[in-house]
């Protein structure tokens, strides 16, 4: 299996706070990789480091065997990494289709004079954005809402638009930051199926999530962070059995003889 995204001893310190402290991670091609941990464990910060939002304090990040440490987010995006945000960041005053068209930005080459003169480059780009945009919208089931302003959609739908927009980049890896937050159980189930389907289509997915049912059922490998440190990495069984993970989530219980809490 090919390693797609690798973090080597990555740290991020905000002053004295070690938000992410020497975390190693390996995501293979074809994984659904889960990152979990209590609130404030540094999961989102870790994502931000991978996608270039912040510079790292220490360590290196490799994507597709290429060092991407401290590159700008737009350059990393061009290399094939797409992400969504914990607090949805849609272009609220643009329609759903327009939102997705921006996802095609890196696949189009229209320059100023192309757009003024409507050259063949412009026509091809617009056609591509329009057709593929509609295709993606249909895939995420938002066909009826293509002309609605993104800000006017319901919460669950906004999440879907955000994922659709990221898919428009045609990324090698998709980083999803709490995609199920604020969703009801039915919506979460649908999302789970959707993510599995995407994975079958060949996307590698990394996902931060609090919903344990979601993580345990979809992810084949899981990384657990606590106070910025990696405490466990492995499949769901291994994580469930891990003592440190249990302590991080449930606290240090009084140990009864025999070792169970």
């Amino acid at each position, binding site marked *: 299996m090919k390693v797609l995204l690798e973090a080597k001893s990555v740290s991020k310190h905000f002053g004295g706070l070690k938000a992410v402290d020497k975390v190693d991670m390996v995501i293979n091609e074809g994984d659904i990789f889960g990152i979990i941990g209590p609130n404030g464990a540094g999961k989102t910060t870790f994502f931000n480091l991978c*996608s270039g*939002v912040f510079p790292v304090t220490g360590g290196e990040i490799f994507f597709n065997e290429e060092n991407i440490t401290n590159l*700008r*987010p*737009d350059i990393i*995006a*061009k290399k094939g990494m*797409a*992400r969504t*945000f914990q607090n949805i*960041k*849609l*272009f*609220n*005053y*643009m329609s759903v289709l*327009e939102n997705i*068209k*921006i*996802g095609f*930005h*890196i696949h*189009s080459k*229209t*320059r*100023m004079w*192309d*757009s*003024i003169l*409507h050259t063949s480059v*412009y026509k091809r*780009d*617009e056609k591509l*954005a329009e057709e593929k945009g509609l295709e993606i919208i249909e895939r995420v089931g938002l066909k009826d809402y293509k002309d609605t*302003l993104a800000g006017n959609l319901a919460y669950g739908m906004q999440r879907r638009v955000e994922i659709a*927009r*990221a898919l428009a*980049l045609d990324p090698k890896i998709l980083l999803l930051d709490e995609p199920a937050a604020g969703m009801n159980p039915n919506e979460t189930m649908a999302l789970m199926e959707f993510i599995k389907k995407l994975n079958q289509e060949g996307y590698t997915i990394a996902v931060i999530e609090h919903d344990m049912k979601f993580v345990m059922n979809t992810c084949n490998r899981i990384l657990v962070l606590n106070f910025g440190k990696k405490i466990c990495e492995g499949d769901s069984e291994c994580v469930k059995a891990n003592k440190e993970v249990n302590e991080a989530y449930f606290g240090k219980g009084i140990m009864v003889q025999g070792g169970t809490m």
Partner: protein
Amino acid sequence: MNEIIIRLKRFYENHKIITILIGSILLLLMPVIFPKSYIMGIICRILLYMILAGGLNVINGYSSQFCIGYAGFFCIGAYTEAILAVKLKINFWLLLPVAGIFTAVAGLLLCLPTLKLKGKYLALVTLGFSEIVRLVALNWSSLTGGPMGLKGIPVPRIFGIQFKSSLSYYYIFLLLVVVFLFVTRRVINSRIGRAWMSIREDEQAARSLGVDTYKYKALNFMYGAFWAGIAGAAYAPYTRYIDSTFFTLDEGFNILSMVIIGGMGTLVGPMAGSVVVNFLTELLRPISEYRMVAYAILIIAMMWLRPQGLFGASNSILAGRKINKKIRKAKKEVAA
């Protein structure tokens, strides 16, 4: 007021071809309808400010970089044209794009160090820039004529026609406004325009989608500055005399008020803003200095009644809750 504007828009959409046809005939025959040069002078000013307000709107409305020192670009364009025309006797039609490009380069120089600034910080920098440009124009006597200004700027001519009075110069301004609208509309509806708007909506998200926000912000500034340069270059031979007092900060605020009153982030808005503000300027001429008070009251009233501006869309970022609620209510009533 909202009702009237919605009706106007609906009327336009229903009778598009007829409205455009009648509108263009009226525009072409304007000097015949108003043969008085006083009235044509006002109309010329309206057209001039349409380009300026439109250009500023590309910066403020489409990529949400807040520029209030737009008069600085206007000044650079006007002086470029005037100096090259007076001292080197270069043809006006050649100088028009030259002044535009020169101003765009000035815009690039201004925005390179300020790309990371946002909102009021950027606004302050542009404010300072505008004043610096004006002071340079005032003090660099050997080049700009200093406080004496530049006199005897040659009028443009083509096929033996001299554009001497406002009656004939009207057509130059009209042509420029049409070109501006045509070009800007196409740019806005392309990948570039979408990139600008994505920066306006959420810069971080735009970057995560691979939009090189620095590049597009710089491009946006250059595009806005370009049209200020064009407007300046057209303005200098129109008045045939320029000095630095034309390009004060007040001028910048004047242009900004047109954009705000007309509606940011729409193409029609600044055009309407230019008409309204220039008409008001003429109407309020008898009270001279107090007309600034009238503007201020108008802007406050606009912010209260129609925050998105006259022709701003009800779904614009500026529209605010108040209007949105009303629209939603109306929609529900229609649905019910």
